């Protein structure tokens, strides 16, 4: 898998989020380190996001390792993906 630039990764994450929250327009105001719970992401939609991420980026997490905190901001999601892509 080719490594992508940070900008590309960010755009893909934002697109992913847009597809998975109730009100995508809120994302435009959302900074990279802002808490995503303001988008209405709760423990349930979090899993939805995880699954979408797994499918988009070809990674896979076991349920045991999933931690909501890794998905609380855009930057954290990006880090988490990079970390796991590297491992695989």
């Amino acid at each position, binding site marked *: 898998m080719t490594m992508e630039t940070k900008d590309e990764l960010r755009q893909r994450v934002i697109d992913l989020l847009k597809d998975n929250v*109730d*009100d995508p327009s809120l994302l435009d105001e959302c900074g990279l380190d802002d808490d995503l*719970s303001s988008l*209405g992401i*709760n*423990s*349930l939609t979090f*899993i*939805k996001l*995880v*699954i979408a991420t797994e*499918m988009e980026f070809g990674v896979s997490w*076991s*349920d*045991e390792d*999933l931690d909501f905190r890794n998905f609380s901001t855009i930057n954290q999601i990006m880090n988490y993906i990079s970390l796991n892509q590297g491992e695989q």
Partner: protein
Amino acid sequence: MDNVAGQIFEHVAAGRMDEQVAVQLLRALKQQRHASDKDIAIIGLSLRMPGANNLKQFWDNLAHGRDCIGLLPEARQQDSLGFIRSFTPLRDEEIRFSHGGFMKGIDEFDYAFFNLSPKEAALMDPNQRLFLQAAWEAIEDAGYGGSRIQGSKTGIYLGYADWPVYGQYITKNQPSQIPMASTGNTPSIIAGRIAYLLDLQGPALLVDTACSSSLVAVHTACMALRNKECEMAITGGVKVCLMPVDGLFEIGIESTNQKTSAFDDGSDGTVWGEGTVALLLKPLRQALKDRDPIHAVIRGSAANQDGTSVGLTAPNAASQELLLSQAWEDAGIHPETIGYIEAHGTGTKLGDPIEADGIKRAFRRYTTRRQFCAIGSVKTNIGHLDAASGVAGLAKAIAALKYKQLPPTLHFTRPNRNIAFEQSPLYVSDRLEPWLTEAEQPRRCGVSSFGFSGTNCHIVLEEAPDELEVKSAQRTFEDVGASEPQLLLLSAKTRASLERLVMRYAKERSRLLQADFLDLSYTVNTGRGQYGCRLAIIADSTAGFLDQLQWVMDHGFASYEKQGIYYDEHRVVSARKEARQNGEWTAEELKARSQAMAALILRGTGAEQRMNRSVLEELAKQAIHGGVVNWDALYEGRSCSKLHLPVYAFEPSRCWIELSAETSVHAAAPSLSVNAVDGAGAVRHPLSAGAGSAASRLPQLSGRHDGSYTAIEWQLAKRWEELLGVNELSIDDDFFELGGNSILVIRMEVELEKAGISLDSELMYRYPTIREAAAYLEQLPGEGIESPRKEVDIQSTAHASFSKESNHREQTALAQTAAASELHEAPVGIEARECDNPSTSTLFMLSNIEPFNDLYYRNCFYNSLFPVVAHFGGSILPYLFNDLILYHRGDGEESGGYEIRYEEIESQESLFHQMNLNVEAQGSFTDTIEELIGSLRQGHPVIVWVDAYAIPSRKDVYQQEHVDHTLLVYGFDLAEQCFHIIEHDRRENLSYKPCTISFTDMDKACEGFKAQYQQLEHRPAYYRIIHRENARYAQPERDALRRAFASRQLEHRVQLQESMTVLQQLVAWLKQVSSTAKSLSDQIDTIIEILNQILNAKQVEGYRLLYLYGADSSLLVCHRACVEHWETVRKGMVRYFYAPIYQEERITAIHARLEHLIVAEQKFLSEFINQLQFTLTHNH
């Protein structure tokens, strides 16, 4: 009758009648003539059984072979603890609740319907309450509701043999309540009260022969009818188990495996059960003449005794043989025509063979045929109902005759080795079979019930005469006016009851569609009472009528004149009442209205037989406003039959003895002489009398515009509240309508006397309202404290000083109640009051209202309530610490049925009271916007029920999905036309924040709730929260909370441990349904729902522990482990929800987690209990 036959022949001869029809009529006539004078028709039936609230549900259970035995439902365990603690030496942890056939909701009773006070109802034995409602239903089922049965020579024969528990509990623990509890706990008054309420003039008595009581009661009723001791008879039985604990009340015939396996070789006894059946009986001949609906016919019966048998309680085959043969002779039938015997069948190794032997010997007197008669026992489905077991069997037999099928008896695998079925006339009915008979031969069966006392009874039943034949015989020369419009009036005492009644019609639609329209309207109108909430329908056909009911259910209870639908509510009020509300009429006005209607009917019928539609419309409009329709005039000259139609839907109000309200004997014991002389005592006593905590509370009084009430009115109200248990009173409420009676009137006189007020009980009848009684007392010289005795001076001094003190209290009470009563009484408007700012401003918000987002506790109501508690300076902690949090499994649900239950230890009311809050639940809005504004102006925040579908700020469901939900309304803005509310933007997301909603949307949201949810069940529309400002309030302290929490949780240790058992079942269920892709997909929604509930509850648990024991406690570590396991399980399940790909390894991982989880939860529970015990022993 010969005359009728003659007429038929003449009609045929003259060519006016079809021959075919004539033959049918003559055959029906013949049937009538054959009705022997001995035959008794069962025309009304009502039952409640384990798992069934009516005959149809009961039959459904029988036909499907359901075993309705289960563990005593948890809600009922609570209610039974007081009795167990009081009467047994068991410690809580030793209590093992029994398995049995248990009813639900034995605490529910519509006290208001029967004009009883909530207090008296709560003190009444549930047996009495249940049978009262059952008898009422049976009467309506026969079409004899309302005034039709009143004044008739109807007898009451109830089989009853209970060991008194409820009344004895009162004797032991609340002796001061004995006077009020006396009638409700005297068994003979179960029968007497029914006779009293309905003015029935036949004998009313109880029959006690132990297990056979109820069947013997039916037999006795039949004998009385034959002897013309009465014209109709109410009969039946009732049984509830108040202390179903293993090892108690056992008589040695109990099964060890919680199954009753009658006639099976493995049988080892019976399981106990509960139920009630009420029947209305009448001689068949008269029933046919009166065109009554008939369930079945009792052809004959017999009762006898074992005499000196092997042992006092041992059965005797020879007596049973004789009994059956007597019953058959009495019925005048050949035993070969009997297709089924409902046996006593207790499922004991020795009893069953004796019973089978007795039956065989009886048959052998008449026939040598083998295996032609089926046998079964309803005890295998619902257990042994003790005194009510006979009527339970009878009900089963009636159902089998009606549905023309033989139901299976359960748990029969191998015949009892001591019964030679092949040689006998009997075979065990072990599967559902059609019940076939030879041509023209009516189905017949027998029902046996044998008493532990030695008294046996057997009844021979036959199916009801063919309805069609009877009908064609009855509707002789009438033009069957199919499309003739009819007025039909359905009514109830409360709107919720009426709504449920309408629902019952909808549920029975397919059966009712068969009903003849004229008969239907006749029964609806003449077979029921006319109550305050009335729905009048003008319909053209049965189907049309049912469609119109559906319309009302879909569109809400209101008038839709174009559709021929009229709805309104009314109540009768005293002419002295000021400021009457809509729908309040005096008796005089209603009488005038009824007279006008009678004239209208006369005019309408004058010209032609049929009512013209405009007359019906006028009648409908008058009827919903309380006019009484003279139905007899409307149906004069018509021959109509009564039908079995849905019966009154009682309010399921909880009535149960306060298990915690043990009052000191001395405090409440009347000691007149002391109080009369001791002036000071008389001052204090009146306010401290009554049940413990309620000591200084004044009732909520309403009824006067300015909200001011005199000292005497307060005094009277206080007494009313104590005696009747009603805490919201209007000064225009009638003492007797609230449940006052001749005994209470005398107590009232005594209580008032103690308070220095002399009001003769006779005068209470003349002045039955607070307003009238107070007016009378106030016009007396010396304000009603006139007494010829010496103590006059002391008393009046006492009274004067009391008045002073109470005046002072009044100031505060007034401030609160005035506002409340104004809202009640005045046509609501935003009238400006000059002295008061909130009442004039156009923008108003309560201060310090902060959203509560720490937890999602139980449901959205609490997230709406907590900001209010904080606003008034209270603490929410007592709420959070109040519950037992339990894993729970509801019974009967097909998909698991698991849930988290928050079982309140203290009642909500009591918690509200501690916070000095009055939470007033209101059933409906008259004008949503104005009522909300009015309440806010007075400083009372409101929690409203809404349908979130209509709330724009709800991103998840707005215009998409209906969700019942609460909003906290804490301000308004007239300029912007909006309310300030606290709301979250999506479900179960802790994002509650202040926002606004327009008046229009609020109105829609409330209306939406009404249409979507209130139609289906009785729920409040909103709660107004009123703070008692000057009441004392102490913030709870951590140590005190810790101790209280520990002792309460420990008290319910048994339940906590049972919760673990349920958890294990839940885990097993989760594993099972997740073991295949299909079942997982089917159940995934349910699974996620329960997991969400669990995690929310875990959060509450965590919050509690953190507060009580700090972040470092080892308990919290155990708790976190549980939470982590649950979260992982939920992740896995939610993953499947969003991406339904079944991956074995993920499921295996989930299953492993579930195993860890059980261990972690068990560890947590034991640590928890240790910690609680430590708290109690070491924390002072």
